[in-house]
């Protein structure tokens, strides 16, 4: 049994362990958590031949520095255009590579994107909570945050490849500035001119972003008197507006219920593209019907499946004898 040890030298805020998440627990106040960009983790794991939801490291805009203390481990980096170095040697931002004992991996924010996933060949040892290693930021439950000094242990066939290779970066993994949304479920609290502002206005990503949500600057969307509404369920992608008229889009670690009205809710897949935007980026909303939303979700899922099956094909070394 091989084993590799990785020590965290530096980790920005909100750098955590994440797997595919823990859906099914919202009734207990627990959101699914999981990566901010869900497809990034699936792609990174698939590139290594892992199950798509295996535990990996989610890197925030703050970046990450890891030292390999012993052994060797093959890693796959996907999501955003981050800048990667091993001991000062630059790697492609979407790539599969091996980190060996004594080497240092540096990941920092690059020309585009905000969140990346680092998948690990083998098994990254991690605490689980309710059957998942996904870190719930507010409580710290699950695999937990990465902080300087923490040592991660990887067991199993951690080094699976010697050659470095790049992972194709499809256009649908880029930041998404036009977001598909379905009205409601509480748009009745917003007067018609405010709804028009959502449908036609240009908003800006503010700097208030964490794993719970992202606040928007731009047109104000004041609801009518709505403080008396009983708390209702909230989803990842809910566009919630507090009394001050500033919209907030709920993300992976969202609270599960709340009393602020939700003017619209994003297509789940568009949230992956939203989180790759950066503060100051413009955003617009395209309001669509629920039927169109389901249709788009199915088209997108087919494209992702095709890409993942191509990526999952066994890697054939160029000097293969077969």
């Amino acid at each position, binding site marked *: 049994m091989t084993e590799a040890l990785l020590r965290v030298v530096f980790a920005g805020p909100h750098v955590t362990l994440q797997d595919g998440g823990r*859906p099914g627990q919202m009734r207990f106040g627990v959101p699914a958590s999981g990566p901010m960009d869900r497809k990034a983790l699936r792609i990174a794991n698939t590139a290594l031949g892992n199950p798509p939801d295996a535990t990996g490291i989610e890197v925030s805009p703050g970046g990450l520095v890891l030292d390999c203390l012993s052994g060797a481990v093959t890693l796959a980096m996907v999501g955003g255009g981050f800048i990667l170095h091993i001991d000062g040697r630059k790697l492609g931002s979407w790539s599969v590579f091996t980190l060996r004992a004594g080497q240092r991996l540096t990941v920092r924010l690059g020309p585009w994107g905000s969140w990346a996933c680092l998948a690990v060949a083998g098994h990254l040892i991690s605490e689980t909570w309710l059957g998942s290693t996904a870190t719930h930021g507010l409580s710290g439950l699950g695999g937990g945050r990465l902080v300087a000094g923490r040592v991660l242990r990887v067991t199993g066939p951690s080094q699976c490849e010697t050659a470095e290779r790049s992972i194709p970066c499809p256009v649908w993994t880029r930041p998404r500035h036009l977001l598909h949304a379905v009205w409601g479920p509480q748009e009745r609290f917003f007067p018609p001119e405010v709804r028009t502002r959502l449908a036609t206005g240009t908003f800006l990503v503010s700097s208030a972003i964490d794993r719970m949500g992202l606040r928007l600057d731009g047109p104000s969307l004041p609801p009518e008197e709505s403080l008396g509404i009983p708390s209702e369920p909230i989803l990842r992608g809910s566009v919630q507006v507090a009394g001050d008229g500033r919209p907030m889009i709920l993300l992976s670690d969202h609270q599960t*219920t709340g009393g602020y009205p939700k003017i619209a*809710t994003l297509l789940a897949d568009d949230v992956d593209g939203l989180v790759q935007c950066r503060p100051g980026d413009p955003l617009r909303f395209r309001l669509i019907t*629920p039927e169109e939303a389901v249709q788009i979700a199915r088209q997108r899922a087919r494209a992702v499946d095709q890409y993942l099956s191509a990526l999952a094909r066994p890697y054939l070394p160029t000097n293969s004898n077969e």
Partner: protein
Amino acid sequence: MTPTPASPRFRAVADHAVQVEFAETLSDDAHAAVLALDLALASDPPRGMREAVPAYVSLLVDFDPLETDHRAVESSLRRLIQAGATVNRQPAERVVEVCYDAPLAPDLDAVAQRTGLDREAVIAAHLAGRYHVYMYGFAPGYAYLAGVPPALRLNRKPAPVRGVVAGSVLIAGPQCLVSTLTMPTGWWIIGRSPTPILLDDPARPFLFDVGDRVIFRRITRAAFELARKEGADD
């Protein structure tokens, strides 16, 4: 049209959920309808359903859009509601221990002052409440308990207090909750409980189910310390 328990409103949410609304304001009948539908969904989930989230007067069904769509889920929900399921499950009764001693109950005096009761009368009124779990929200294991007696119903504080420790027994308006994380709150802190709510058991992750009855039982400081020590040793 205002929704009612007999004629609820259905709302499509994004590409992956349907919300059923039985009322627009708090109502016991609407909440009973939520509980009945939640129970019916547990035994007869529509195809493609991922989870059901009960709230005060509404319930959300999250589904996989690759397997079903809003219309199919809505018709399953209509069928379950029309079948007229009523809650005939005897709600489980959960006991939560609480210590009201001064250092663990920083707001007890303020609550006494605002309600015109003395400390012991506040405690007696809190213990006499008939509580049930209305819904979870805000954070893992935050179970909103309805049933604070009218004499203790206070508006929340004007500004939240930071760093309120996990296990705090909090009241605001008709609601009570036992916190599970250390976080800010504007609710009144009237005691501390050693009773675990996050059970770390995949088969039964949380102490309560929505709809359960809750009874508070007073314990001494010594019993609190002992229970907390035992909890820490697990």
